[in-house]
């Protein structure tokens, strides 16, 4: 593993998830949003946002409450349609593509509030996200267990690899709804990783999480970046953003008001006034 703290459940010799689908073409952004708007009955939640998400990096999206960050993330993921503007992912226009298709193409989001499947076990939460299971269709289901059991076994092993890596092996058979807030965040991240994402959209992954788990999540994200995964992350914890993000985009009142490294942003007066005070 390229980047991992010496900690039980993380540094052990588990084969890391491969993000083989990531085409490492330096300089070419993985996702480009151009003049994206999202209006709610006249209220401009996202008002002409244009950003580029560089490949293989962690990009931070920060801004005060109500800046439109989560709405923008939802528009990128397709869970909210854009009022206008264009979004291209890996060079393809995905503006009118439904959310589930975007996810299947590797543009995967997590949510601001925990969104585990409560009455599924922890490992089932991971397995349900896998795209390559022959039993995950009506036809496959009706064909019977023999038709899909090999896929299922392979995916169980993959899910167990992730559980081991994220230190949650012991929770495998527990209902996800009984997990703590931090564990639910980890489940969401693992679930997203089961899809073999190309770009992970994280909506406040540290929100409401115990400081110990915050540190764990930070290490996991660093390791994922080292493996080539591209991440766009909405986050309020600025010291975490500073530590993790290569590039940071600042939003306020639905617009982008600046971007760059945290150090460079701290030198821009209007951004400091708008958001970075203190």
């Amino acid at each position, binding site marked *: 593993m390229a980047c991992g703290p010496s900690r039980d459940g993380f540094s052990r010799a588990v084969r890391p998830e491969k993000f083989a689908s990531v085409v490492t073409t330096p300089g070419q952004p993985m996702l480009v949003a151009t003049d994206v708007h999202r209006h709610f009955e006249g209220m401009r939640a996202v008002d002409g946002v244009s950003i580029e998400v560089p490949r293989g990096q962690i990009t931070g999206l920060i801004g005060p409450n109500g800046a439109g960050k989560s709405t923008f993330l939802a528009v990128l993921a397709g869970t909210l349609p854009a009022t206008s503007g264009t979004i291209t992912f890996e060079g393809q226009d995905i503006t009118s593509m439904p959310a589930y298709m975007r996810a299947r193409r590797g543009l995967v989001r*997590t*949510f601001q509030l925990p969104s585990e*499947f409560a009455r599924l076990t922890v490992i089932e939460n991971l397995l349900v996200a896998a795209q390559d299971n022959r039993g995950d269709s009506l036809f496959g289901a009706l064909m019977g267990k023999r038709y899909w059991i090999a896929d299922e076994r392979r995916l169980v092993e993959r899910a167990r690899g992730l559980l081991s890596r994220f230190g949650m092996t012991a929770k495998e058979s527990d209902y996800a709804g009984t997990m703590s807030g931090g564990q639910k965040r980890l489940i969401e991240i693992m679930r997203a990783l089961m899809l073999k994402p190309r770009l992970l959209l994280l909506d406040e992954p540290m929100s409401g999480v115990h400081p110990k788990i915050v540190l764990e999540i930070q290490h996991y994200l660093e390791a994922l970046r080292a493996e080539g995964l591209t991440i766009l992350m909405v986050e309020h914890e600025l010291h975490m953003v500073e530590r993790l993000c290569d590039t940071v985009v600042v939003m306020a009142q639905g617009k982008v008001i600046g971007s760059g490294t945290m150090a460079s942003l701290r030198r821009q007066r209007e951004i400091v006034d708008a958001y970075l005070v203190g």
Partner: protein
Amino acid sequence: MNTYYAANLLIYAGVDIIACLSLNLVFGVSGIVNFSFIVFQAVGAYTTAVLSLPPDSTSGYDFQHYIGGFNLPFPIPWIGGALAGGLLAIPVGFVVLRKLRSDYQAIALLVMSVIANTVITNADKFLNGAAGLALVPQPLSTQVDPSTDAYYYLYVGITAVAVVIVLIVANRIVNSPYGRSLRAMRERELAATAIGKNPVAMKMTVFIVGGVIAGLSGAILVGFIALWAPSVWLYPETIILFAAVIVGGKGNNIGAILGALLVPVGFEEVTRFIPPIGPVGLIPALQWVAIGLLIIGFLWFRPDGVRPESRRVFEGGPAREVR
């Protein structure tokens, strides 16, 4: 207990088990509150009836008016009834399941149930209106005399085979990765979308499968009782089946079977023996009150039912922690 009574009880049990397995698939596993379930059973029954009946101009049948009358042999009417249930699910699902939020879906389906019953009741020339269809030919009645014990045994046997087939289908769906996806959709539709599931397609698919099974249950019932009228598929009948699935255990096929045996069969059969007291209609009215209390009681004290949805533990996994 005479043979007819026993056969009657067993066939109703079979029909209710099939109906509850269908409702469990749609509601218990997939989270679609199909308050129009009984309409799918009814369309299966009506289709079976008109496929079995001779034309309404035939002597002895000319006291009623209905479309069709194809006089087809068993099992074609049953297959037709099942297919009709599935076909009905396509336009209904297309209207209700694509855009509406789940609570509005439930209301729309309930309204549809009321409208469908009202339309069929008032459209005299279509399916004989409120009087309904009578003298529906029973399956294999030309080979075996339907008034004999042998025929009752035969019908119970055919019903049992249908129950087994439906149970196998339901088990394969529920216990497969596809069933897991359906349960994920039930838990959080938006999160399921975000991991690449297409909830509309999944809902439509399971709604059609549920419609086919419901249609089959109607086909079996009309084949036995030989008549079908709007009074037997009023919307409260759906509530009884919901009560069965809730009592038995949502999401669990064994629970659905248990619920079918406890509520529509057991509960209704037991209350039939209560001596008539008070004004006429008091006991049947109290039955409905009891069904309502049963639902509320279970949702309050035992929301997972008698046989809750089972936890899936994979081979080689760690022992579950005791909480």
